[in-house]
């Protein structure tokens, strides 16, 4: 990897200032939170902002507000370590805390933020390479080239959604607030993403993700199951977020999202549909059978391809196993 290229660093003290500075530099500007994603990408020359707007001094992005039973709001600059160590979150949102705690290493979680994790660049081992490496494949569609080497006849880029928190937060129905030059808007997290390796978010130019809103606790349970080579640190090459809403032991709503296996957290629609209205109990053979059958439906939508660690065909076969286990966790 090369050293960082030269750039101008801005350090505003409020989100509004940050948005204003970024707007002034248009596409030349990039926000940076923890820098654990942006800076390596800059060293690889796949992202080349000449103005970097640091959010580290924006105190208004570090808050946590809300009480049990109501919506909880986290500032985008909340570090992953802060989430991992927050006893209140541990008690009330254990699946979210777990998802945050399995991201990378303690050192990177100290720097990495929830906002940054939600906007993590899609990954691909044809893309996350230094300049010379990419030159030797004549570059790729996502940066400097025109072909998606994962699927050369494909008109689109297949870089992979690789955030651990996204599948889980999409499954539980989190929202986010975005602040842009034209004002603030709040959208469901699922609406933030697009199924495209390059244009993977719907964030508008200059918009800053300021807050994450966790839904109120009202009878749902969730789980996140991660597949990776090493237990110590690795990006997910399959990450299943599952959330079940119950009335007694009857499932009233279900949402399963498959991450690390496509350019967005893929909804396992059929799996979820098969669970709704069913009576699910722990250690119950009939429930187990039903979950297995429902989880099997996650095989087809999983778009594992040969652009991450571990064999793509095996990763796809693992999707039903991980979905099944994530659902079991919710019982």
């Amino acid at each position: 990897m090369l050293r960082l290229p030269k750039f101008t660093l801005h350090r505003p003290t409020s989100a509004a200032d940050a948005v204003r500075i970024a707007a002034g530099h248009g596409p030349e500007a990039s926000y940076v939170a923890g820098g654990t994603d942006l800076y390596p990408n800059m060293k690889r020359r796949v992202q080349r902002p000449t103005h970097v707007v640091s959010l580290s001094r924006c105190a208004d992005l570090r808050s946590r507000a809300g009480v049990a039973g109501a919506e909880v709001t986290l500032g985008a600059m909340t570090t992953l370590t802060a989430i991992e160590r927050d006893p209140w979150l541990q008690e009330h949102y254990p699946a979210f805390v777990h998802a945050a705690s399995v991201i990378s290493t303690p050192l990177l979680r100290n720097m990495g933020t929830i906002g940054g994790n939600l906007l993590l660049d899609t990954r691909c081992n044809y893309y996350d390479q230094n300049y010379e490496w990419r030159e030797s494949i004549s570059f790729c569609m996502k940066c400097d080239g025109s072909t998606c080497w994962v699927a050369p006849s494909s008109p689109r880029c297949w870089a992979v959604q690789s955030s651990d928190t996204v599948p889980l937060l999409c499954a539980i129905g989190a929202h986010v607030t975005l602040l842009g030059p034209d004002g603030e808007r709040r959208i469901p997290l699922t609406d933030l993403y697009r199924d495209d390796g390059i244009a993977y978010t719907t964030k508008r130019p200059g918009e800053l993700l300021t807050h994450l809103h966790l839904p109120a606790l009202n009878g749902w349970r969730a789980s996140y199951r991660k597949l990776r080579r090493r237990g110590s640190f690795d990006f997910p090459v399959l990450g299943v977020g599952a959330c079940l809403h119950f009335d007694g032991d009857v499932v009233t709503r279900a949402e399963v999202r498959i991450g690390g296996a496509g350019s967005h957290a893929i909804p396992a629609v059929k799996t979820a549909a098969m669970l709704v209205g069913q009576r699910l109990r722990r250690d119950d053979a009939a429930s187990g059978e039903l979950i297995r059958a429902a989880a099997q439906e996650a095989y087809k939508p999983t778009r594992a391809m040969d652009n991450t660690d571990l064999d793509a065909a095996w990763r796809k076969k693992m999707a039903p196993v991980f979905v099944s286990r994530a659902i079991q966790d919710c019982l």
Partner: protein
Amino acid sequence: MAPETGMPESGGATAGGERAEGRYLHAVDAASLSVIGKPWRKIDARSRVTGQTKYADDLALPRMLACKLLRSSVAHARIKSIDTSAAEALGGVHAVLVGSELPVAFGILPVSQDEHTLCIDKVRFIGDPVAAVAAVDEDTAWEACRLIRVEYEPLDVVTSVFDAARDPHGMDPADRIHDYGREGNLHRCEHLEFGDLDAAFAESDLVREDLCFFEGNTHLPMEEHSTVAFTDPDGKLCVMSSTQTPHYLHRALAKVLAAFVPPHKIRVIACPNGGGFGGKSDPFNHEIAVARLSMKTGRPVKITLTREEVFQTHRGRHPVLMKSRIGVSKDGRIKALEFETHLDGGAYGSYGTASTFYTGALQCVTYKVDNYHFKGARWFTNKAPCGPKRGHGTPQPRFALETQLDKVAVELGIDPATLRSRHLAEAGSLTANWMRIGSMGLGECIERVCAGSGFRERWGRLPLGRGVGLACSSYLSGAGLPIYWNAMPHSGVQLKLDRSGLVTVFCGSTDIGQGSNSILAYIVAEVFGLDPQDLRVVTSDTDLTPVDLGSYSSRVTVMTGNAALQAAERARDLLVPHVAAQLDIPKGRVTFGGGRVFDCEDPERGMTFAEAVGTAEAKIGTIGTTGSYRPPKSPARYKGGGVGPSPSYSYTAAVVEVDVDPETGIYTVPRIWVAHDIGRAINPALVVGQVEGSVYMGLGEAMMEEMSYRGNRFGVHKIPSMLEYKSPTSMEMPEVVTYLVEDPDPNGPFGAKEAGQGPLLPIMPAVANAIYDAVGVRVDEVPVTPEKVFDAMQRKAQGKEARYGPRELPRVEWPEPRRVRTPWQGGTGVEVEREDELARSSQG
């Protein structure tokens, strides 16, 4: 035939005369030793852990320039033109170097001088360097590289041994990767026969044939290669580099730069290495490039490779495809073993010729093998060149043999530990391929790990998903032959005894973290009764220190140790008569200990060590001695027998426990028991460190590490980064229980054998064997990944062969074998064809 004595040959001139009693010191009672066998701190430990050790990249000299290499972006092509004009015109650029300026080829082995500092007319893999730039800083040098225009004419790209083996006769000679080698892209092709295989197979009760594949992997040292070169006002070149082999680098520099500087004006200093593992054992193009650039610019020039470039520099584990055919009797004795290996060598020769022989050299030193045949082929491919990595060429066949023995044990209904311990090769014996075994503690190693792990009670009896696997291995304590033929010592030590009491040890060896500098201090301190921390050790500087061949082949403790011991005993012998005269006691009573020299019958009567040196110096002048070491001559006198002989062999046994998830194939390794026959531990703490390090590295190879390439995408390395080239972290490291077995070897200093490589070898097969014990499937391929375990489990569930592994080998027209009769056939260690000739010449 007369057994070789293994006596270190005398050398050095300062103190001639009778050889001291060093070689019997192995028999010394451990209790009488004050330094040897104790867990002394490494002499450089404080410096290393406080960050004060200066690695090559820490060096910063006034006016120093930075160098970057422009590397090939194509895997195989002819260079039509190189235009450096734009780069030279860039501000801040001081010099641009291209291949035609250094036309002399080099390479670590005399038989494969196939590398150039910078490619001249052809590039052979992505990463082959074509130009070098020296500029005011790295960024400028990198920008300048982007301005160099290289026009390539693409050639066919070969990324596997099957590609390489395709139609060797029909291929256009212009498409060959090299214009030397056997034919086509076949680099080496060896065929050796020891004994009568057909008859032995016919007599066998069980014959099995197994194919397996060991994927390549790399060393992954923390420190990227780095070199600083400068030329002093007298025209003397100095190269300071992260190298394991300063002597061989010196030779390569002298050869390539012969037109510019004579050998005696080249000084190579090996900086402390931040990990080597074999990856810094070749002389490298970047080292020669900065040397020449420093001459061209008149300034110091430094290069530090990026991590991606370290992957391209490689010289790591060869991918090897293997077939092993074994014939055993009912009780498991190996009557016949036929072994075939295919090495994917990558783009250059490197150590590959030796690697090829190593894939066949050590099969017979662990268990008795009555008849043995070996065929080995090495193929050139358009990938980063392979070379020596910890275990050099032997982990791959060891994996094949140890997994095959596990299958034999299952078929014969004998537990794998008993099967092995019943037929151990004997201490002091000769093997079918004429390797002389020294001390042999494998039996005790097996018993120790079995007792610790409960292997015999648990194997085959654990619930589904849990398993234990056993495997054993052996490794050499230093190669018996040097890399280039010569009759000089392999290791030299000089001692200077100062009247202050300081002893300075000079030796060409290189500490790559294994503690070789400390070993020199311990051995010399033991002889003089000093505290090892009080000595000064000066190493790895070709101007100041006598030649040691380098830190490779686990040779350093045995060879520098013997040389240091000889030098120290000679110095002690210089002091003793003068001290005896001064104290007025018989020489036999002069004793060294606690920093004093005294009368063993009246310890009060004596003097300090410094006074002893002064006493002798007053009588005979400045006190200095030398010591040197050459390994014993090998009885393997056939062509190819130069690879494998060693002063002694270490032995290791390991039991690995696995937990497999039967639904996914994902597994973890909670515990490993490993026993290593070290001969004698010069420092048990360092030995345990080497054993645990080997276990760690072996586990990485077993579970996940692989040099994978995009064969269908231009031949690029798939994952040249510390994040995506998967290697275990400390968090994946299981609990390791280490046992040291000490059976002193007559050829080792104080009986010591090697520790750095052997303990890695059993880990990979033990993991595969444990997987079988856990879920009943065979993964005949390294790394044993969850995908492969899962695949084999699915096959099993479908009633197919419960196995994942290769099914074919490339086709080769093997040459006629070189036939050598085994010792028990009355052989002489030479080819049958040459026996008569040699007999005649010896009569004449």
